[in-house]
């Protein structure tokens, strides 16, 4: 009897091809589309996560001749992902909900469903790979999604199948066409967060916390020394490194360098003020044996940034601090800090703040 795999299918090309490839390889494929939030009228034709996408996933399964189910995970997703999303913005951070969706929704809640169905394997259309219980970056470096996957339980990696992680995006599309999955082959890729219509995250915050919530209310734009230089219409509309909406008239271009919920201030400064030499992360999750102080790794502080060499300088339970060998721009609280060794994902955490940087023996690079 063939091995059973539960495939999380969004209705997009990647997970559709994942399902088709596994089917081709002889797995007993069960397709599942997660219904994660209410499909309101304000999201008429999003490429992902709409009812149409459920239909597309179902059409792919029908074509493959495998069962397809819709799983309603709305309340859990609302609690684990959307609530946290607005809470993070309220706390002056820039959240990364896809990480929590992977951690809690896909590789915990969906895994429970897989258990209930005697499915040993769980598969998604992520651009990442697994090798002997370790998670690796995707083959296609321009599409690599390992940055979003650090939060899963280490034991789950052995049960994951990520077939498109071995391919490039053009190869995936080509494969979709070759497999006759015309419904999804040329679908526009969704760049936005699935539950945020038109990229307008303030709308989501307003719906949950009210239009007059502090993070969407007016506050001062200030310089480091406290000088008020303007006003903004809600600090949740800003993120570290942002230029849009920042007042001009300074000698050099100014950027958001900090967000201070206590007095609703958006702090701005020149480009140099964005550079950090250290980073502190919380909720650290290891996908290898936890590494000690002094270990050398590479880190990535945002999706699609290049990795920077770093050293672990403090480990305090689930909080870690790293010193970066070269300054990194716009280290943003709420985003992920992911530790790599080449292609291997070592672990990750949520960025709490920029750190002090090198304390001891790190060579000081000439500025």
């Amino acid at each position, binding site marked *: 009897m063939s091995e059973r795999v539960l495939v999380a299918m969004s209705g997009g090309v990647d997970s559709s091809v994942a399902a088709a490839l596994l089917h081709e390889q002889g797995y007993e494929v*069960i397709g599942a589309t997660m219904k994660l939030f209410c499909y309101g009228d304000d999201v008429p034709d999003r490429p992902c996560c709409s*009812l149409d996408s459920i239909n597309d996933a179902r059409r792919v399964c029908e074509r493959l001749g495998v*069962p397809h*189910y*819709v*799983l309603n995970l709305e309340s859990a997703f609302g609690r684990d992902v959307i609530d946290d999303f607005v809470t993070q913005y309220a706390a002056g951070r820039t959240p990364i909900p896809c990480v929590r969706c992977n951690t809690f929704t896909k590789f915990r809640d969906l895994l*429970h469903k897989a258990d*209930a*169905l*005697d499915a040993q394997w769980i598969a998604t259309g992520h651009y990442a790979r697994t090798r002997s219980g370790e998670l690796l970056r995707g083959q296609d470096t321009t599409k690599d999604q390992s940055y979003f996957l650090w939060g899963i339980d280490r034991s789950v990696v052995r049960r994951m199948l990520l077939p498109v992680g071995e391919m490039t995006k053009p190869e995936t599309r080509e494969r979709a066409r070759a497999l006759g999955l015309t419904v999804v082959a040329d679908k526009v890729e969704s760049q936005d967060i699935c539950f945020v219509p038109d990229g307008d995250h303030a709308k989501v915050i307003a719906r949950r916390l009210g239009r007059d919530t502090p993070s969407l209310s007016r506050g001062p734009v200030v310089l480091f020394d406290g000088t008020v230089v303007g006003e903004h219409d809600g600090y949740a509309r800003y993120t570290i490194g942002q230029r849009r909406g920042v007042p001009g008239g300074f000698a050099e271009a100014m950027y958001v360098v900090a967000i201070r919920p206590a007095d609703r201030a958006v702090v701005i400064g020149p480009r140099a003020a964005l550079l950090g030499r250290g980073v502190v992360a919380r909720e650290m999750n290891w996908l290898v044996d936890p590494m000690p102080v002094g270990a050398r790794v590479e880190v990535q502080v945002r999706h699609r940034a290049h990795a920077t060499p770093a050293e672990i300088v403090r480990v305090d339970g689930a909080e870690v601090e790293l010193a970066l060998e070269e300054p990194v721009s716009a280290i943003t609280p709420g985003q992920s800090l992911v530790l790599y060794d080449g292609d291997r994902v070592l672990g990750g955490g949520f960025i709490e703040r920029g750190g002090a940087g090198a304390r001891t023996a790190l060579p000081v690079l000439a500025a």
Partner: protein
Amino acid sequence: MPQPVYLDHAATTPVRKEVFEVMEPFYGPRFGNPSSVHRWGREARAALDEARERVARCLGAHPDEVCFTSGGTEADNLAVLGPLRSQVEKGRRVILSTPIEHKAVLETVHHAAHDGVTERMLTVTKGGIVDLAASDAAIDDSVAVCTVMWVNNEVGTIQPVPEIAERVKARGGIMHTDAVQAFGKIDINVSKLGIDLLSISGHKIGAPKGVGAMYIRRGTRIDPLFHGGSQDRGRRPGTENVAYAVALSRAAELAVEERETEWARVESLRDSLEEGLLARIPDAVVHGRGAPRAPHVLNISVPGTDSESLLMALDLAGVAASAGSACQSGNVTPSHVLLAMGVKADLAIAAVRMSLGSLTTPEHITRVVELFPALIAKARRLSGAA
């Protein structure tokens, strides 16, 4: 894998061989339009008239009181919306219904309420029956239409429709009953009841999907949902689907002929399923148990499980069941029927409806009695671990 077990007859049933045979000629030589004056038209007209007479006989109605529709949903829409205008003209502005109706009724009632009519809901007991004692206060001279289903599609409870009809008629209201799940189970004779409108559906009784009928008592003023023709006395414009009308009439006759023997057969199978499951899962809850119930429905919740996972696991093991009524996108939310019966949400989301019928055999019951508790045990181990 052993032969699959279909326990979802309340969702739909296969077209019976006898039914398929009688409809077949209308896809061949007898293709005429019943409104045409020529020979082909006459042949079709004859078949349609006869079908109408047969359905009327099954309901205790006059043939002119039978209107063919595209199914139960259309009939329910027509029943709720059709009489409203003339009733409102008489100053009657209330639609009376229950919170356990099928969505075809409930959503139509909400729709009408949106257009300025008042909706009023009768209360339902924990057993899943309309509270007759409490209904008197709700039934007054302002009631335009009262719509109460005869057999609930999710839990199978039989509603006191004749008693409610009597009260509604006494106050001058129009009484409708959605008899989609009741037809073929309950002995229905509209000539002896105060029912003005009654809907039935073909595919629940071995006719194809896409055909239903409504009984409309003589003298009941109904505005059509569609416009554009004089077919069916203008109540349902559009060329009649003769093949389907013939199919429905044959299926209805068979259902009435076999009503008592099928009741006994299906009830004994349902009872052994229920007893078998309760013996193996002592804390399982059978919804509507103890209330008068139609014989074909068993709705059961096991604490600490969820129907979504159970239905998938059952499906993968070859057993078809459902959670409440089949939903379009296939997703699962707590049933409005169970919530109205006061069932707690965590128990409601565990509810699995198994509905028996023509395909059900004692062997199927034996298999499910073995299989279901095993799946439950597994689901509970997992939820305990989580």
